[in-house]
């Protein structure tokens, strides 16, 4: 192959699969979280804090958020690949999204484990 340009070659299937696996995890977590919300006797601070006190909900939420970040990365990258033609700008946007998402991951841990 000659004249290769920077495109999304070789990792298509892996990302396609990652997008679907993370989507299923998030969909299931969404229904579980709604069930947990519905089970709250009242919505006040002690109840709300108690809901987030268990390790199960923290780990489950962290799993949801990590799936969200992977999912958002694949989705945003696909959109940039489709609409942003200048390579330099596109790769810059990719880098910004990656750094932002890593930042959100750190922030999420801080939020969940400082309860």
């Amino acid at each position, binding site marked *: 192959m000659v004249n290769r340009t920077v495109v999304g070659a070789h990792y298509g299937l892996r990302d396609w699969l990652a997008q*679907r696996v993370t*989507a*299923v995890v998030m*969909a299931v977590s*969404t229904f579980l979280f709604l069930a947990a919300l519905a089970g709250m006797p009242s919505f006040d*601070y002690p109840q*709300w*804090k108690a809901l*987030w006190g268990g390790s199960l909900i923290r780990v489950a939420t962290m799993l949801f958020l990590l799936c*969200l970040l992977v999912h*958002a990365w694949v*989705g*945003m990258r696909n*959109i940039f690949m489709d609409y942003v033609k200048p390579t330099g700008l596109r790769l810059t946007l990719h880098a910004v999204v990656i750094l932002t998402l890593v930042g*959100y991951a750190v*922030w*999420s841990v801080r*939020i969940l484990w*400082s*309860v």
Partner: protein
Amino acid sequence: MSKPRPKHLDLTKIRFPVTAIVSGMHRISGTVLFLFIPLLLWLLQQSLATPESFEAFRSAVSSPLLKLVLLGLLWAYLHHLCAGIRHLALDLDCGTDIGPARATSKAVLIVSIGLTLVAGAMLW
């Protein structure tokens, strides 16, 4: 023999079938949700940090502007979820014929808007 057809991909001139509208909205809703991740994380943080920040969180989310934003995000989430479930079915070769594909596209639009209105009525 060949009919003269317009050959372009000008998004402002193409007529979008319902399947294309749902597909485009999947992208738009995903982008909107990505852009609003920090607001949602911040709200979660405020709601959990201290009793005072919880009260601040409650009054913030009861302001009409933020309520409208959150309702818009809920719609984006529901649309993305419903269209995503439809996508998984398409991946499994379910509903790939044109008739079912159109029907499920309409169902995605109706279910996500309907659920948003129900949630809006409950929360308002």
